[in-house]
């Protein structure tokens, strides 16, 4: 008996379209352009890795035989891991404060975390040079309060400070999304059952917010692997990472074969991280929006 008024919706079932359809035709040219102008150039790198200077796998043999390249890959992974850990540790309390704040504070905190992402990478990096250099802002402040000056520029620390600044939104936004969906009454309920607040946090709230931490961490890790400008300008030339080594091989040394092999190594690392994202999110039944940072 359906006499009650029904809200919107026609009750029509979801449509199963066959073929491209009129809307697919709008997407197709754009897909073709992306394949032609984005995917194809990257494939040529792969081709060059196995054809230059002569066809074969000698470039990959070099990649795995040389201590230098293995150290390079190890350093790249360590840097990405460190960036992920730091943004997670700083991002979690920030996200928690943001998720539990009023709408106004929340909007300001969102703007703050997004601002570095939308200010020019060159300007940001240049600013860190000014701040961290020996006669820079930081040391002026340190000596001003009677502390010894630090020599931070051209170190991994400087690279991490600069990298994490711009990676924060990718860590914070997924965390906030998950935290907002947590019913705050649950940790409170744990407290009423006798758990002290700290214990309630670690046994109830933290596990519930873990999916957000995880998806943020995986995105940050993937993005960290591709940083070029920050390590090149804030880091030490002796502590090169993959993207910079790749650039040197190709542009300075015109070594397309070995450069190509480095590119493949980088791509494979990113690809593996992606597979990890996919497997973990599927196992946890999560939905990770990798494009989240592009929105606002």
């Amino acid at each position: 008996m359906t006499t009650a008024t029904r809200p919107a919706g026609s009750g029509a079932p979801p449509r199963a379209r066959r073929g491209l359809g009129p809307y697919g035709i709008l997407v197709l040219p754009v897909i073709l352009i992306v394949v032609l102008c984005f995917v194809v150039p990257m494939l040529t790198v792969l081709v060059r890795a196995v054809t230059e200077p002569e066809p074969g796998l000698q470039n990959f043999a070099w990649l795995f035989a040389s201590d230098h390249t293995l150290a390079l890959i190890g350093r790249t992974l360590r840097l990405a891991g460190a960036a992920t850990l730091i943004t997670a540790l700083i991002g979690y309390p920030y996200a928690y404060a943001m998720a539990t704040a009023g709408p106004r504070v929340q909007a300001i905190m969102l703007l703050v975390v997004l601002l570095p992402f939308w200010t020019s990478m060159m300007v940001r990096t240049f600013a860190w040079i000014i701040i961290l250099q020996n006669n820079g802002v930081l040391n002026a402040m340190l000596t001003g309060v009677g502390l010894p000056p630090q020599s931070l520029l051209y170190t991994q620390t400087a690279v991490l400070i600069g990298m994490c600044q711009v990676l924060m939104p990718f860590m914070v936004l997924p965390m906030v999304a998950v935290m907002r969906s947590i019913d705050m009454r649950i940790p409170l309920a744990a407290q009423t059952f006798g758990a002290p607040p700290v214990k309630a946090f670690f046994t109830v709230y933290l596990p519930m917010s873990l999916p957000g931490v995880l998806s943020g961490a995986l995105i940050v890790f993937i993005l960290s692997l591709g940083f070029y400008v920050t390590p090149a300008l804030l880091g030490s030339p002796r502590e090169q990472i993959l993207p910079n080594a790749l650039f040197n091989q190709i542009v300075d040394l015109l070594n397309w074969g070995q450069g190509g092999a480095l590119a493949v190594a980088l791509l494979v690392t990113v690809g593996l991280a992606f597979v990890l994202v996919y497997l973990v999110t599927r196992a946890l039944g999560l939905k990770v929006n990798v494009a989240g940072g592009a929105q606002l």
Partner: protein
Amino acid sequence: MSPEHSGDVTGAALQLRGVTKRFGSFTAIEDISLTIEPGEFVTFLGPSGSGKTTTLNCIAGFEEVTAGEILLGGNSLTSLPIHKRNLGMVFQGYALFPHMTVEKNIAYPLKQRKLPRAAIARDVAFALETVGLTEFKDRMPTQLSGGQRQRVALARAICFGPPLLLMDEPLSALDKALREQLQLEIRRIHRELGTTVVFVTHDQDEALALSDRIVVFDKGRIVQIGTPRELYQNPENVFVSEFVGESVMIAGSYADGEFSTEAGRFSTAAASSSPQWSGPAQMMIRPERIGIAGAEASAPASGDGSGDAVHSVRGVIEDITYVGNAVKYRVGLPGGGGIVRSQDIGGTVGDIGAPVRLSWNPADARILAREDA
């Protein structure tokens, strides 16, 4: 059957011939055939998912029919693109263009028809006047109330004098008082313009109040077509009798002019229809045709309920609703139950749980085949 139109009939006849729509393996509507006369106001009534909206979408062209044909004024619509069908349509969520003023919204279909500026201004003014919104023409849709938005949507749909006006649950988002007011207005506009109207709703009261004829849909098929009175008084099956109006239903079986139930046997010789078939059946009586009295009151005629004069049966009051001019009793009966309506004349039949006796004129009972059996 349709009321007199004060204006000329400008509407066109609409014909559906065997219209079928499938989504993959799911059949949304199957073999829908019906003819709507020029100027007629026809309502598609049915629960959600019954196919009424899909049928409307096929007429509008939002869905391509899988099979069958749709004719408007004798010309096939089926292969015509949506924008060439020349139909007016009012949508459930108003679908006003949010970036245009009321005036621009109404002018939109006229502009698409490349009418001269003066003609557009004249038609917009006429449509605004028809819906009584002339002074709101410079407002944006967000500055209007729900009822006003619906009027703008209506004005936009009628301003170019379409031969057929489609309305997809246009009033479902409005509160009851506003809905009834707009129902009156829609009827008035229909009378004035004489256009053919197809109105989709799941609200039986709305369908009864508005329509010349009602098409009842269930599970993708038409289950009955008729005037509101026909549907109410002579439903052809249990679905229609339950969907249109309230009733008392008693389950039993029927054979040879006699309906047998736990509560007794009832001759149907005097009933409005005495079917030829036999088998599991429901007896249906409309609430206002039933008398209700305390159980101790003597049965009006024959005590066992099998007499020809008046049928009666004992039951128990399960619920009482006071509706102003009447009291509605929900009465449980052996093998059934339903709603009985009694004029509120001060006295009371009894409280919840009190035994009562229902009685009715055998001519008011209808025997319907039981579908679940």
